[in-house]
């Protein structure tokens, strides 16, 4: 699998983290729908899927903390 450069990966990760956090906190869903195709334009498809998946898993505990009732 081709690895993206460090600069591209850092920029993509920063964007993915903020956007995923915001969308998970507000809408709750549809994050991957918008984020995955956009990231796939900048990164190898495998990296885009892996990165988005891991960022979403980091977002889960944060959202459960805010919305736990």
């Amino acid at each position: 699998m081709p690895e993206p450069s460090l600069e591209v990966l850092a920029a993509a990760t920063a964007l993915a983290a903020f956007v995923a956090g915001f969308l998970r906190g507000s809408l709750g869903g549809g994050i991957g729908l918008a984020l995955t195709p956009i990231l796939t334009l900048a990164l190898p498809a495998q990296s885009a899927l892996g990165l988005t998946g891991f960022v979403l898993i980091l977002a889960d505990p944060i959202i459960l903390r805010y919305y736990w009732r």
Partner: protein
Amino acid sequence: MGILIGVWLISGMPDHWLRRLIGSVALALALLQLVFLTTRIRMGHHGSVSAGVGVLAGMASSIANSAGVMLGPYLAGLGLFNAAVVATGGAALVTANCLKVLSYWSIGFLTWRMIWMALLAWPLLYLGSWLGWRVNAYLPRRLFALVLIGIAIAGSLKLLLT
């Protein structure tokens, strides 16, 4: 089960085929979400529908990280209010996402470099989440959802046409 089927499908797939698959799935799900948003069509809650939604959501999750497109309307159709849909969907996806990430790791889609980068970006993730939680009650959901669908469609078409 849907996640495992999806990961099996994409493991070993060449990059250009995977891009087209992601574009196709994302486009289909974006159009599906548009249908749910603009019509009164709702998912039934018979056992077979629930099982089908589960499998399809798992596959959508592993191929395009888009389980929410299937789960959101299903949960909303149960009559839950916004915050409950977000929370319930989030709780359901926690286990699914763990399985998905382990599967991605096993097929080489996730590397240590990506993990470290994502961990370093955690403050941005927290900031985005906090901001999203704060605006949840004030957000024009329909308009915002339409914008997201538009972005998804544009990105998908770009993937399919290049």
